[in-house]
């Protein structure tokens, strides 16, 4: 259960931090605000999930302890969440692919047998539905926009596609939580995810890459890209330099 919750929490902590990197750098003021807002929602969800993980673990680790005092190999986020932000189009495509996945995941968890997790899921699905509307709107604008914007988001989609398989991987951790009444049907979710994604891609005049290559995975086992360590260094330095400080 701890491992399952840490995966969920780390996905949102890491993608939330990446989104927050746009604060002050957004292409227009409204987007600057939107990306910061979405970052806050994801970070808030991460906080709830990691706090629950800490409770379940029973070693007295808080959400902050888990976020700031674990090293790279102890993070369990999917690799797609840790890739650098790239240009605005890259961030939007990543967000769109992740939001689609997240909404469907919450839908399954809102009905799960663990009351606290179901409560977090029922709340988060409302927020992620908003996020998905935002990211799919931009997919349409950029994909069906200028030749330049189309080419950029298509290239981002080509790069990111290989990282989507990891979001639907099933392993022993899923089996373990299934025994507790937490069932995430990855196969049917993957199919629904694909039809959600396809629907928006069609309107955005974008296509799934024909030969993307094999799926890249490893994050769930703590094997990350070279990018996560740099991100964590920045994210964790204040908490580690001043342990126990409060503000």
């Amino acid at each position, binding site marked *: 259960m701890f491992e399952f919750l840490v995966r969920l929490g780390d996905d949102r902590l890491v993608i939330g931090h990446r989104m927050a990197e746009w604060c002050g750098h957004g292409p227009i003021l*409204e987007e600057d605000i939107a990306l910061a807002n979405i970052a806050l929602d994801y970070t*808030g969800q991460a906080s709830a999930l990691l706090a629950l993980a800490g409770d379940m673990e029973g070693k007295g680790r808080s959400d902050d302890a888990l976020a700031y005092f674990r090293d790279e190999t102890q993070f369990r986020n999917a690799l797609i969440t840790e890739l650098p932000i790239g240009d605005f189009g890259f961030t939007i495509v990543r967000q769109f692919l992740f939001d689609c996945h997240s909404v469907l995941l919450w839908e399954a968890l809102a009905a799960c047998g663990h009351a606290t997790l179901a*409560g*977090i899921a029922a709340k988060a699905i409302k*927020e992620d539905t908003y996020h998905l*509307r935002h990211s799919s709107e931009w997919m349409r604008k950029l994909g069906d926009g200028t030749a330049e914007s189309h080419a950029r988001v298509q290239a981002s989609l080509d790069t990111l596609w290989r990282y989507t398989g990891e979001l639907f991987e099933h392993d022993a951790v899923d089996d373990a939580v299934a025994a507790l009444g937490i069932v995430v049907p990855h196969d049917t979710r993957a199919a629904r995810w694909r039809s959600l994604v396809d629907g928006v891609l069609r309107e955005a005049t974008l296509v799934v890459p024909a030969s993307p290559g094999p799926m890249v995975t490893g994050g769930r086992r703590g094997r990350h890209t070279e990018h996560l360590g740099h991100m964590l260094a920045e994210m964790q330095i204040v908490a580690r330099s001043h342990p126990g400080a409060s503000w």
Partner: protein
Amino acid sequence: MSTPALTRDELFGILEEVKDPEVPVISIVELGIVREAVAEDGGVTVTITPTYSGCPAMRVIEDDIRAALSARGVHEVRISTVYSPAWTTDWIGPDAREKLRKFGIAPPVPVEAGGLVTLTRRRAAAVCPYCGSRDTVLQSEFGSTACKAIHVCRGCRQPFDEFKPL
């Protein structure tokens, strides 16, 4: 140290004085953030629910709750956060909606029923809090705080915040 024996109504009366830090015209009771308040074991337990998971005002609200109760002699305050049932703008009553409108924030329209995953944009247009026009355009789904969206009124050319339905 003894805590004055306060009834649930009295506790809610005190909490009614705690305003939302970012929308100071309505209280956390009117917003539906306070779910329960009970005097027990020589202290008070207040159960709250966040509006948005990442709402940065929640910590301030917790401090304000402690301060308001402390001013009434209640120094042992436990705050518990619940996520279920998930907060919804449908909990904001008619009086509070009117206060929002007078403050220049369009009150939330009723939450639309429907599938969980709705990709198409809602909906009933936000009504301009300044001139009452329905001829308004959504500028951005995300506004100055997590709970607001930005609109522009075509009637009076005024940009305004809407408390977005959730």
